[in-house]
Each structure stands twice: as C-alpha cells, then as structure tokens.
C-alpha cells in the first residue's frame, strides 16, 4: 500500500513537473526550482484523492491503442462527413444498450471517452457495467457492437474480454 | 504565409458566427450549451492561430489553456444545475 502510494506520488509529481517545464518556457534555476516545489506540493495534496485501483495497466499497449483509435476517428469522421454533406441527410439515430465485461474503473472511463471521441457515437449514461450509447446510424456504431473496441481496451488492461 | 493565416482567422470567425446562430436560436438549453462548447473549441484554435500570426505562440497558448479549463468548469456547472433542477 505504502509502495503504491509512493510510486503514484512520484508519477504525479513528474507529470506535473513536465507540464510546468513545457508551459513556463524558462529554464534558469529559480523557475525550475519553483516548478519542482509546486509540482511536489500539488501532487502531495492530490494523490490521496485518486482512486488507487490501477490494475495491470500497460503504457506500451496504450501507445498501440492510441493510433488505432486515431485511425477509427479518421474513418468514422469521413463517414459522418459523407452523411452530413449528402442532400437527403440519411441518418437513422438509435440508442444502444451495451453490456460491458470490463472491470477496472479506469478502463470504463477510457472506453466511454473513446466512444465519445469517435464521431458518430456518444456515451449517454454509465450504470455499473452497462453503457447507453447514442449512435448516428448503423455503420458508425459497428465498432462498438461487434465488441472490437472493448477487446482492444481489454488488451490495454491485459484482461480477458469474453463477449 | 501571413495572408494564409489571416484567411484561416476569418474562416474561423465565420464558423463561430454559425455556432452563435445555434446558441441564439437553439430550441432547448442543451443546444445552446453544445453550441457554446463548439464555439469555445474554435475560439481556442483561433487564439493559437493569432499567436502564430504575431509569432508569440508561447503567450497566446496560456489564454487558450485557461479558457479550455474554465470551459470545463462552466459546462459542469450547467450540467449539474440542470440535472438538479430537472430542466429549465
């Protein structure tokens, strides 16, 4: 428990310090020192507030997931563009109840965010392991209903999704 | 190159005008919130483009970060308010 708190504290402080370095743009000693002190203070205040349920989360797999998500965003953006620009406006909006098999909270948050980020689908409500998703038409929600997106997300968390 | 960025600026302003129409016209409150959200995204980009025109991106980026964060606070305030009140 103590070790996880310490690692999380160090991770928080390092990321905050990196943001400080990027945003301040001055690299003389006083500014960098102030940044370090402030980053440690903010991390000290905030680490306790975080949920500590970081399961087997792998950063490397997230780096594989992100380009895949970007590819999906491009594909569905082109689809939505075609729908919006066609004169007859062929939309068939529908609500989908989707049963998830993911357990970690962080995975659910990331999955919901990915769904919202992909044009054509938006997460409306999250109840336990149950997602309510609004989709613009049949083609745009195919990724979700076929379970592809969830399997990818389960891969990030090294979990077995059993659809 | 500068003329190109000015063209980008003008296009973005015109797009903001479209969103402003939705904010003013929108039948429900949520249309207005949504329009405001899209408008703020465009405004954030607009500020960064302005920074590119003036060649001082480091200064202008601060405005857009601040506005992005406060936009989140505002949107949450609206959503919480409307959920508690149960509509307008």
């Amino acid at each position, binding site marked *: 428990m103590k070790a996880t708190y310490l690692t999380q504290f160090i991770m928080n402080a390092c990321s905050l310090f990196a943001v400080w370095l990027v945003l301040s743009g001055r690299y003389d000693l006083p500014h960098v020192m102030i940044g370090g002190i402030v980053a440690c203070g903010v991390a000290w205040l905030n680490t306790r507030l975080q949920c500590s349920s970081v399961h087997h989360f792998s950063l490397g797999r997230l780096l594989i997931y992100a380009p895949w998500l970007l590819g999906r965003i491009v594909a569905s953006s082109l689809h939505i563009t075609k729908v919006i620009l066609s004169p007859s406006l062929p939309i068939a909006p529908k609500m989908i109840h989707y049963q998830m098999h993911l357990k970690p909270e962080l995975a659910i948050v990331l999955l919901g965010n990915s769904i919202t980020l992909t044009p054509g689908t938006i997460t409306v409500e999250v109840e336990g392991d149950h997602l309510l998703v609004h989709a613009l038409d049949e083609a745009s929600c195919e990724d979700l209903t076929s379970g592809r997106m969830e399997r990818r997300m389960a891969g990030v968390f090294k979990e077995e999704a059993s659809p | 190159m500068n003329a190109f960025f000015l063209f980008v600026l003008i296009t973005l302003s015109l797009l903001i005008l479209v969103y402003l129409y939705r904010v*003013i016209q929108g039948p429900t409150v949520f249309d*207005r919130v949504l329009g405001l959200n899209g408008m703020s995204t465009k405004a954030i980009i607009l500020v960064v483009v302005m920074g590119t025109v003036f060649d001082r991106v480091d200064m202008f980026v601060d405005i857009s970060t*601040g506005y992005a964060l406060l936009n989140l606070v505002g949107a949450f305030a609206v959503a919480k308010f409307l959920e508690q009140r149960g509509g307008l």
Partner: protein
Amino acid sequence: MTYAINIALLLLLIVTAASATFLVKELMSSVFILGSYSFFLALVWAWLGAVDVAFVEAVIGAGLATVLFLVTLFDTAPKDSRLRRPPPPLAGVLGLPLLGVLLLFAANDLPSLGDPSSPPNVHISPYYLQQSYADTLTPNVVTSVLMDYRGFDTLIETVVIFTAGIACALLLKETKS
C-alpha cells in the same frame, strides 16, 4: 485590409451576442450568450495585442462570471428564470443609437492603431519599455508597471475589491430568523 476584415467580423460577433443577450427569453440562455460575448471581447483584445487583458477577460468574464451567474440561478425559483420583458421605452430606442453615433464621431479623433507618434506612445511608454527591467528586475513589463510604478494605485484597487467582497459576504450571510 484582412486585418480590418477580421476585426470587423469580431465586432459583428460582439454586437450580435450583445443584442442576443437582451433578446432571448430565458435567463440561463442570456447567461451563456453573455459568456460568449465576453470571450469575443477577449479575442478582440488578443487581436489588438493586449494579451494580458485578454487573459483576464477570458478567465474572469467568460469563465468565472458565468459560473457565478449560474450559482445565483441555483437559488432562484424556476418561475423567476423566465423573463417577462416590458416593451422598451421610446427614450431608450431613440437615445441609445444617438449616443452610439456620438461616440463613433468622437472616436474619429483617436490616433490610429499602432501610430508611433501618438501621445501615449511618446509620453512615458518608451521609458517603461526601456528601463523597467533595470528598475525592477521583473521580466514582464505590464507586471512591473502594475506592481511597482503604480503600486499604490493597485493597492487601493485591491482594497476596493476586498471591501466589496466583504460587503457581499455580510449581506448574503444567512440570518437566523
């Protein structure tokens, strides 16, 4: 030329938002549009080169003031958040455009933007720009002007704002009746 077109577009946005603030029916929509108005103003400041003013306008005007208005709306009854607007008085309809024309007429005499020989640019600004770092060791000129050269001015302004805040807190304190 494009410079002028862009500023004209932003001004058009501002005027549209300002009139829409008065014309919509619900208080909440009015608050949103007021927030967007504030942000257009911030964009104009940024475009004129006053980045710090733009920052304050975006953060306080568009962000914080909107949230404050919404918090106020939390405490009003639902029937109060719909506006019943009486028709505007004739004096306002006639007088306000006249005032606008007068102001535009007065604005004719202002020096053009960025004119190096205009009074504000020859009086004391060159001194600030050249000497402020040597005088105060502050990298940002605006901060040095506000906090060092005009320190007392800023102090009294802060006192005024704090007094207003304390007065509001005292007025809004829940009284046990």
